[in-house]
């Protein structure tokens, strides 16, 4: 079931520059379990789009299958959405982007959706550097099919039923860095202060932006012994940096200390301001990002924040050199070579 929100909006609600209230970025009421991490991520997406002055109809939301993949109904109610098939959101998003490169694409997936059934597509969409935001709502289990271990469950993690996961986890963020994703971040559904600027930066990034968000499943994987529970994550979280997102239109007033602070200019001129917490990590250096991840893991920490960014890589449209106008808007004049050309071609076949 899904429930429509009341249509009535208080006239004095604050509006963003486009005249939209935050409520305009919401979707139908969530039907996920109360306390599910996924709902907090939806709220962060709403907040980010509101603050970023995104035109809702210029965004398309796509997902696979799972509790996580249901969430696109719960944000951006005026945007087109597509709840596709299990593990295959990347290919659908790729096709959609090929049809119209001028829209923003937000893909939502789960750890089952991306790290198991959809691993092939996850890997290949990174390789192609598709211009999209890809969020994995990672709860270490299959929520929608009632709590089976997923491939991101840590070895030794205990399920609600009491069994211990014997298999090594797949670390999606490390893997994304390894595969050359051009924006890789990790966060926690319970840390809105970090998550919102990360989503904003990801939406402004021109290329594949991956955010792995640890998002506890309160119903099946929030027990003692689970490494994806709220308590465990809060105790083991370690941020790379604090993050401020400064939109391109805004005047920069703050003074930054060049030693520990880094500024990254995104393609549209927006700035990401990072106050680094780890000195041997440089977000523009893939090797140091990968090693920071490994070090954190060996200490049992979950490293969060922006991990790696590369603003210079070509995205898929740039690589294949497609025209700037959307392919779905080309008409017969653009597409059909006409009878004279065909007649000439026929000559060569006689």
């Amino acid at each position, binding site marked *: 079931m899904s429930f429509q929100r009341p249509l009535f909006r208080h006239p004095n609600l604050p509006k963003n520059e486009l005249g939209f209230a935050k409520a305009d970025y919401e979707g139908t009421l969530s039907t996920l379990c109360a306390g599910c991490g996924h709902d907090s991520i939806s709220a962060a997406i709403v907040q980010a789009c509101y603050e970023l002055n995104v035109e809702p109809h210029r965004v398309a939301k796509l997902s696979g299958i799972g509790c996580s993949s249901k969430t696109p109904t719960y944000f951006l109610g005026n945007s087109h959405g597509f709840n596709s098939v299990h593990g295959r959101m990347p290919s659908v998003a790729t096709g959609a982007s090929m049809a119209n490169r001028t829209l923003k694409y937000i893909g939502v997936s789960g750890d089952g959706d991306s790290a198991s059934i959809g691993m092939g597509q996850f890997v290949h969409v990174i390789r192609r550097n598709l211009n999209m935001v890809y969020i994995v709502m990672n709860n270490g289990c299959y929520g929608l099919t009632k709590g089976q271990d997923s491939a991101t469950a840590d070895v030794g993690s205990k399920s609600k039923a009491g069994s211990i996961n014997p298999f090594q986890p797949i670390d999606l963020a490390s893997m994304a860095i390894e595969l050359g994703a051009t924006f890789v971040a990790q966060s926690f559904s319970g840390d809105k202060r970090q998550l919102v600027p990360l989503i904003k930066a990801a939406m402004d990034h021109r290329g594949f932006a991956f955010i792995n968000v640890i998002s506890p499943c309160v119903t099946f994987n929030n027990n003692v012994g689970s490494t994806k529970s709220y308590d465990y994550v809060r105790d083991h979280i370690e941020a790379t940096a604090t993050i401020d997102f400064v939109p391109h239109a805004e005047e920069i007033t703050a003074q930054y200390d060049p030693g520990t602070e880094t500024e990254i200019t995104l393609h549209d001129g927006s700035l990401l301001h990072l106050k680094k917490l780890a000195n041997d990590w440089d977000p523009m250096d893939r090797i140091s990002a990968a090693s920071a991840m490994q070090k954190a893991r060996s200490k049992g920490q979950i490293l969060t924040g922006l991990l790696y960014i590369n603003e210079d890589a070509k995205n898929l449209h740039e690589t294949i050199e497609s025209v700037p106008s959307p392919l779905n808007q080309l008409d017969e004049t653009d597409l059909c070579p006409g009878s004279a050309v065909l007649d000439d071609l026929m000559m060569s076949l*006689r």
Partner: protein
Amino acid sequence: MKKTNDFVIRFANVNGTGSASANFLFAKSVFRMGIPISAKNIFPSNIQGLPTWYEVRVSEKGYLGRRSGIDLMVAVNPQSLEKDIASVKEGGVLLYDCTKPLYEHYLRPDIRFIGIPLMKLCNEAYTDPRQRQLFKNIIYVGALAELLGIEFNVLEDLLAEQFAGKEKLIPYNVQALQMGVDYVRENNLNIALNVERRDLIGDKILMEGNAACALGAIYGGATMAAWYPITPSTSVAQAFESYAEQLRIDPVTGQKKFAVLQAEDELAAMGMVIGAGWNGARSFTATSGPGVSLMNEFIGLSYFAEIPAVLIDVQRTGPSTGMPTRTQQSDLTEVAYASHGDTKHPVLIPSNPKECFEMTALSFDLAERLQTLVVVLIDLDLGMNDHVSEPLKWDDSRTYDRGKVLSADDLDRLEKWGRYLDVDGDGIPYRTLPGTHPQKGGYFTRGTSRDEYAKYTEDGKEYKKNMDRLLVKWETTKTLMPSAELYQSAYQSDTGLLFFGTTAYAATEAMERLEAEGGQLDAIRIKSFPFGPEVEDFIRQHKQIFVIEQNRDAQMRSLLINELDTNPAKLIPILNYDGMPITAANIVNLIQAHQPITS
């Protein structure tokens, strides 16, 4: 007495030795002499080293199906020589490389052996081993030209066309041709077959079905192709890309008005097609049976979520380790009913390159009009062999049917809009594309757990209502599909032949033969699924119908029984499924065995 313009010649080569272009040169020279030919590649699933054959049927009568019985064998592969000799028809001719003598026990008293020392001639003329290999092929083409009476300047012209831009290579090739000609002359060789110029080709072309489908996709306005390599469909996507590189480049910026993506697998290929279709671009994929198997879940999504998509299935024999390089019509039921749940899909079934072009172009109109997946179903024989065909034609006044897509203005005018609401009574709802309107027309796409307004529901009544509307749409589909071809203006017999796709070539020839033996027959060629009223009528009006197809399970027959409630006893299966294109003799024998047709 010479047999003129009516024989089968087979070339036995080693895969990967450059024989394909020499053999095509031969086939095209006969075509240029104004005589219909049909050419078949018979090749292994291998890149280099295994035997491969190329068969050309020369038929003044215009029979374009395969004929068994080899009149002339050009045997240049020692590996398969013994088998090749054995396969020549009694009274036939074997042309071989006599640089080394033949084993005694290979000899047959009932055929003629003509030896040409190909290797020796090459070794004397060339030092480079690659040249020795390549020109050996050209030398035998020269020898054949002289033996059969093919005009030398026809071959010269063809070489000049083939090497346009690489003119340096022309004299070498002409010289090799001449070596073959000279050898035949000097040794007074001759055979009882010949080619005589005719004027039977007119403006017809020689083309592969895959290339014609690719051109159909270009003319039909496809902007996205996603694919994964699989024989025999690979050349569809490759031809699309190369035509697009010629015809779809922005003249000012050099940028592309198309996207071709080689996907990670067929699942992803179909996902991309569906994503693009959802977002309003004409898109397609090309694959073969195993790829269709992988696409099944997405095919269902296209059906239920009502998303335009085009799938070109070039059928082959069996699984990956079946006979992937042999032809068959065995994906019929697979594509007609692909996927989970209650699903069925429109299928277009061309028989020749012209129809490949037209039906592929049409498939995009149908997919967008009907908001569903449309299949273009061909086979290896049509896709990868050159066929004599009417030229492809395009009407410049033709516009694309983009189907029921609402613009921002439409949305402003509309009081209410439901994505799955049947306003027109044809079962086809109106859709919107992302990015159209700031406030209106956004909706959430999912399978069937939604109502007519695309709002989430798992109410069984809503599900059933939607499934029933899809049946209304299925009825509309029937009115838009190309009608079957009837081979008579009025029925003359109570016995009918029914066939489709490449089976048509042999079936029409078989029909002529049966009629020559005194039988009266009616015939129909199915061009699409679901079937139109003309198919139903044909079945109703005939007592018995021979359903001729190239698969084991009589799949078309099953579809007819299933869709039209036909009495199965009326439909007699005539089947061929050995991986080779069906022959008229095969059909005649099976029909005669079932029920002798005489006057």
